[in-house]
């Protein structure tokens, strides 16, 4: 183990000499308190090191030890339900060891090496295996079956395979390879800055169902897609991210809290064990891994936290799972890059950000995708990446937002005006988009109902119309509009208030299935059509607006999923109401 000497300390950046043997991106231990750092620049035998812990008290002359390894995460059973800091140290164990505050130089493995897991083999001696093949499984939580895969550099014939209780460092299998026999444990390591390999990348096709109406209906994201949520503070980015982590129909959730509030992570830690997954009936925590580098934790580890999170997500993807990664917020990660870049005295690009900002952002989102995994069974896995962006002043022209928009296929633009009216989720329907729309609609029309896409198109049209009509109303008043236009305005309002507005804190409203979403929107639009017919048949516009069924439609969001009859009853009530109106004017049947 080589040893260098510190010559300069400036914030999270330390420069050491005598580092000629080290490689770029090697992990080093700084000073005798063994702070963790990573080499990010080399000049001759001088290395610039970003230190993942507070550097106060360090000074020139202190030693730096190289480890010869890149920054890696440990991958094995024990990842689920864990809460890690930015460099995969378990925060719960840190608390047990040093108390309420995070001290420096703590060394703890990301995976518990003592705990035993029941390993159940899936191959037998004599089987030929290749990288990615599943050797056996461990039931990690009630909902996650952890699949132990053949490492990427191993190919050969299984000579020995065990069954029973083992720790992650015990040998569970031996494979005879061309280079001799190889012992395999459940634990593997992977350098975080390198994407894990797969057999083939495939285009995504299935929707990630989130239970959030504006997302699923208007701006859906595909399993294996990349989405971004930019918005000014107070517009509800974190609530959107939390809602997705709660309700998305993913097998695994990796939630990265990057430079955000400590209390938000606490909220996840408190809520997720309590909330149940609508599909499995088990607590949401049983499928979740958390990476938390809050804003008061060291800035360099914030840069690493995004990579730690996505590497863990890729690992589960490789097992053949649908994985969703939420990163809140990528802007803090970019700012960490900027801070380190500034200390390295690099020539800045826009707004002080380094020139390589956009390529780093693109690299990150490109790690999402639907893939054919390694292994002879040809299984598929997806990794969906959803990044929050916190543009200063909500101004999307800033570099992080711009670089993100170039690579993310779904854009949920949060709007402070909507937030100020407490219209949540404050996703502005006029500026947001999803490039997956067509591809996913095909799939949804098969699985839910054929008219799903038509409903969406019509509703969107009415919302667009509203935006135009509002201009006119502002100039000449609502009375100047035709009855049809006034009806459009009322319908648009109903779409906004009764459909798009969704209360994350209401026990029923927080999640809506695709089927119920369709019924809700269909009710709003059916009313629109019936009203149009009624008005044409001579019914007074105000009488239509006074119909009580409008209230029933508005309250559909509060009807529990299992009370299908109550949802269907809305359509009967509507029919009866319009028949009544028609009778009153003595006309024919209009509904």
């Amino acid at each position, binding site marked *: 183990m080589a040893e260098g000497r510190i010559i300069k300390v400036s914030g999270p950046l330390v420069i050491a000499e005598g580092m000629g043997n080290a490689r770029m991106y090697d992990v080093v231990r700084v000073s005798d308190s063994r702070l963790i750092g990573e080499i990010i620049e080399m000049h001759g035998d001088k290395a610039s090191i970003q230190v993942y812990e507070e550097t*106060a008290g360090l000074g020139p002359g202190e030693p730096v030890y190289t480890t010869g390894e890149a920054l890696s995460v440990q991958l094995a059973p024990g990842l689920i339900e864990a809460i890690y800091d930015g460099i995969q140290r378990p925060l719960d164990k840190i608390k047990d060891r040093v108390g309420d505050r995070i001290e420096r130089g703590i060394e703890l493995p990301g995976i518990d090496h003592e705990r035993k897991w029941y390993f159940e083999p899936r191959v037998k001696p004599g089987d030929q295996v290749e990288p990615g093949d599943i050797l056996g499984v461990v039931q990690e939580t009630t909902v996650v079956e952890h699949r132990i895969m053949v490492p990427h550099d191993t190919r050969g014939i299984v000579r020995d395979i065990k069954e029973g209780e083992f720790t992650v460092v015990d040998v569970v299998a031996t494979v005879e390879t061309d280079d001799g026999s190889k012992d395999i444990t459940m634990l593997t390591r992977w350098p975080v800055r390198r994407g894990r390999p797969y057999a083939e990348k495939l285009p995504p096709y299935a929707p990630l169902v989130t239970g959030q109406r504006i997302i699923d209906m208007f701006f859906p994201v595909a399993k294996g897609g990349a989405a971004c949520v930019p918005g000014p503070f107070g517009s509800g980015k974190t609530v959107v991210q939390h809602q997705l982590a709660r309700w998305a129909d993913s097998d695994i959730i990796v939630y990265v809290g990057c430079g955000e509030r400590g209390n938000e992570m606490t909220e996840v830690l408190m809520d997720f064990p309590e909330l149940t997954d609508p599909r499995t009936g088990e607590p949401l925590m049983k499928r979740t891994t958390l990476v938390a580098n809050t804003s008061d934790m060291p800035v360099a580890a914030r840069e690493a936290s995004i990579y730690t999170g996505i590497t863990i997500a890729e690992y589960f993807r490789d097992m053949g799972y649908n994985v969703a990664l939420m990163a809140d917020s990528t802007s803090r990660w970019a700012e960490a890059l900027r801070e380190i870049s500034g200390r390295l005295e690099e020539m800045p690009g826009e707004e002080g950000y380094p020139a390589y900002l956009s390529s780093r952002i693109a690299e990150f989102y490109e790690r999402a995708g639907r893939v054919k995994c390694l292994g002879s069974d040809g299984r598929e896995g997806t990794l969906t990446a959803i990044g929050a962006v916190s543009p200063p002043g909500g101004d999307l022209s800033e570099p992080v937002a711009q670089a993100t928009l170039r690579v993310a296929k779904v854009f949920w633009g949060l709007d402070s005006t909507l937030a100020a009216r407490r219209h949540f989720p404050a996703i502005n329907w006029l500026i947001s988009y999803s490039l997956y729309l067509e591809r996913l609609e095909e799939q949804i029309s098969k699985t839910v109902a054929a008219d799903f896409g038509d409903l969406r198109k019509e509703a969107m049209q009415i919302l667009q119309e509203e935006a135009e009509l509002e201009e006119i109303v502002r100039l000449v008043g609502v009375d100047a509009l035709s009855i049809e236009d006034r009806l459009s305005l009322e319908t648009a309002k109903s779409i906004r208030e009764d459909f798009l507005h969704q209360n994350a804190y209401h026990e029923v409203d927080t999640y809506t299935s695709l089927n119920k979403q369709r019924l809700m929107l269909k009710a709003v639009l059916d009313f629109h059509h019936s009203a149009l017919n009624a008005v044409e048949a001579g019914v007074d516009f105000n009488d239509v607006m006074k119909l009580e069924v409008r209230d029933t439609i508005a309250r559909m969001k509060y009807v529990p999923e299992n009370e299908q009859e109550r949802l269907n009853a809305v359509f009967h009530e509507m029919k009866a109401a319009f028949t009544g109106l028609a009778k009153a004017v003595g006309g024919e049947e209009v509904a």
Partner: protein
Amino acid sequence: MLKEYRTVTEVAGPLMVVEQVEGVKYGELVEIEVSKDEIRRGRVLEADGPRALVQLFEGSAGLNLASAKVRFLGRGIELGVSMDMLGRVFDGFGRPRDGGPQIIPESKVDINGNPINPYARDYPSEFIQTGVSAIDGLNTLVRGQKLPIFSGSGLPHAALAAQIARQARVLGTDENFSVVFGAMGITFEEADYFISDFRRTGAIERAVLFVNLADDPAIERISTPRMALTAAEYLAFEKDMHVLVIITDITNYAEALREVSAARMEVPGRRGYPGYMYTDLASMYERAGRIKGKKGSITLIPILTMPEDDKTHPIVDLTGYITEGQILLARELHRKGIYPPIDVLPSLSRLKDKGIGEGKTREDHADTMNQLYAAYARGKDAKELAAILGEAALSEDDRRFSAFADAFETRYVSQGNEENRTIEQTLDLGWELLTLLPVRELKRIREEYIEKYLPETRPA
């Protein structure tokens, strides 16, 4: 015996370079003997081989390169803490300012603190009744929250902060309560307003004040809020007290930060503020909170005056991204004579949802809150429309919403500086105002609450 260096080679603005030093540590506290009876303090910003870059808290005026003696103290900046701090006034560096004796510290604590393990945090969920309707009803404050007041010059943020400090209670408890006040670069008069108000109400007995006035050294402001928070952490997590920390004015703090950054010739972020300002502000704000298994709590109310009332200014913007909401004061309401001039629409308390409802405030709180917001927003739109097209152009409904918006401002938001409303009074007042609207428009409220709480008597 500490080594003394007389090798100052450079002084520029708040920075000083000392050469040929040995064993200097990053972040270390430095003493500079300017003359026989004047000692100033600084902090190591960079330890570069035999060269140390030092940030001077009290400025460089009168410093002579040849005669200055520099000592590196081998520790960070510390605050001596003890229960005797209560009732005392200190300067921005923690030295007594009220003519009283030095306190005898129980222990000395580094003012930078260590980050709280998110796993050790307890989620803030205890409702604090401030007696101010616009806060309690709509932007509810909870114990352990950080909720800034975004204000502008000339607006009554001091009066509001003092009112909150005076009235804040957690219902049904009688626990230890104290106030820590940190002032950075504010005027004597403003500081005096707080101090006299604390004296008048007797609150001074359970208050600790750290005051750096406008004519005190600017760079000292970087440590003042950390002094205040260190004192607060001691009271909260060692002495089980519920501490309300008010720090004012963050704008002055950020300017001091910018001054140092500019002197170091760092690559600036927006408007010349350093790129690490987010991290720096977060390292202060995140010290608020609750910790599992500890009785005490730190609730933080930073005050910012927004330059040009601009909400997108970097100081305001970055603060908003870290804090759990904001209370925004509006000049327009202030001009209308409404106190407190809280503009409720852009104001927000992120933690309110866990602090309200049955068992905390009342079951109908969340629904009525949403309804009041939505109705006020619609009323404001209607008023805007009426301003262009005249009252006659409004529909019957819009006229009602417009009347609601006026009543909401003058009766709900507006209240006296000494008026302390209970949460029941605030909620009932909300229902009373909702009677101005047609029942069918109350879509955000559950039917059972409408039946239970909506007053029978409708106004004519």
